[in-house]
């Protein structure tokens, strides 16, 4: 009796479907990484490949911080540390120090006005900490001249000014 049921042509499409499901499951075993599953804190927010956490930890750090620059550039670091620009990281203006030295042998020295205007373009906003920064009107104050022509970025205050 059972054989007759199986033999019934009605089940043919069902067998095809089951076959496809089996193929999908086999492919899944091969395709999905072993560490993929439910992790902390559960299925909703913790469904992932665990190895990815280590992947992100391995990314190269680019910005080194002033202490790294101080290893060699003691003059500039000492100079800037006693100026109003002490709060600015070296790499803010010179770019990330990863690999330097030897690669790149020299970091960028950005002398554009736009760099200085980030803080020093006067915006006239009431009760805003920006007002505490000495600012200029970029259109009026020596336009087309690089700021560093007169101001040393590591010791920007011009004596007597």
């Amino acid at each position, binding site marked *: 009796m059972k054989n007759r049921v199986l033999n*019934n*042509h009605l089940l043919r*499409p*069902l067998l095809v479907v089951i076959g496809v499901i089996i193929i999908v499951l086999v492919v899944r075993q091969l395709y999905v990484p072993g560490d*993929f599953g439910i992790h902390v804190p559960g*299925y909703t927010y913790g*469904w992932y490949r665990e190895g990815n956490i280590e992947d992100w930890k391995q990314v190269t750090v680019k910005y080194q911080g002033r202490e790294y620059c101080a290893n060699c550039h003691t003059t500039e670091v000492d100079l800037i540390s006693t100026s109003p620009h002490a709060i600015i990281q070296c790499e803010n203006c010179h770019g990330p120090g990863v690999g330097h030295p030897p690669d790149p042998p020299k970091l960028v020295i950005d002398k554009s006005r736009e760099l200085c205007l980030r803080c020093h373009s006067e915006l006239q906003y009431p009760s805003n900490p920006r007002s505490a920064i000495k600012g200029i009107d970029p259109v009026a104050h020596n336009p087309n001249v690089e700021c560093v022509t007169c101001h040393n970025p590591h010791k920007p205050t011009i004596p007597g000014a």
Partner: protein
Amino acid sequence: MVHGAVWTVKELFVFPNEFIYWAIQIVMYPFMTGLVAGAFVLSSLYHVFGIQQLKGIARFALVLSFALLPAAMLPLVLHLQQPFRGIEVLMTPHFTSAIAAFGIVFSAYFAIVASELWFLYRKHWVEQALLLRSKPHKTFKDRWSSGTYRYLTLGSYDIGEDAQRKDGKAIKILAAAGIPVALFLHGYAGFIFGSVKANALWMTPLMPVIFIMSAIVSGIALCMLTYIVTMKIRKFRARRNQSRTYSREQLEDIKGAEIDVIKTTSRYLLFFLVFAISLELLDLIFRGYTAVKSWDVLRSVIYGKDFVDIFILQYGIGNLIPLILFLLPRLSIRRATIGAVLVLFGVFMMRWNVVIGGQAFSLTFAGYMHYALPMIPRSLDTLKEGLVGALGVFVFPFILFYLYSKIMPIFGPKETY
């Protein structure tokens, strides 16, 4: 360039990372799945509920639904930034996401429609296989056809009275089982949008229902339209090849579009059309009445920037005019054709107004984004997510439909089921 930047124009205060990420292909996707679901429901109205006037269009609708199915997958493949990883939806589905339902529902629906078509056509396939097997001198084409039909029979050659009765039962069961699956196939697409709390226009529990109703409307309209067009082509061909290829009997068979089929179909179209319009108006009225934080910017989009898209194109041309056309007495084939085309346009505009409209305002509620549909492809991105890609998606199912009709004749052998 960030994907989405090339066709987005920002106005006033918009977050820097905001662009129109979901573009024309995400408009096409619910449009195509809506046609799939609607065509299937129409076919099931005959197979399950026995509405005799729909017999002529039922088999047609099912084959069309099957042709629309791969076409419904195409917009997603074109949209994905990593299309070759698309299979991951089946590999590691995250069911808290409505999109993960896609893999299972799509496959289930595919299995059901394929099975139903198998039962519907196996008698024809068995006959063709046996015919070709007994043919003494086979051409290359014959051998190819013979092999195809043999595989399609899945090894079962029983087409006796008993077997045919069983087939009819199987079709009924599958058609019934397929209705909730077809509705789910499109309902979940509505859920994809309705559950996004971050989007003030999309977030409403009505969204899945609105999507399903307008999907059925579009499916019925497309079936009606394709039916009329196909009948016209057959009539034209028959007249041209008169007495050379067709027998008198076959010529009589091709009677042209049957107005009764069209009339009954249009009645169901009207019912679902009214339902869809009511839900959308309800949603709009509620929003205006409750006037939550997002209402200011939504109002400026709905009644301002998108006024033409929503009220003239979608509600006016796409809903009101076809409503009138179908309600007027003495429905003619010509009027039904125009009505069906306008309905399809209206449903398309509904998808457009939801997807693009939802991205027309910024998350800041203080800025806007304008969508400039790329007409001429200048890159892979603008080809896939531009006018060319959209038209390709729309044309594809009809090419498939034509190919299917080679082994699944829509007219011809008298239907037994």
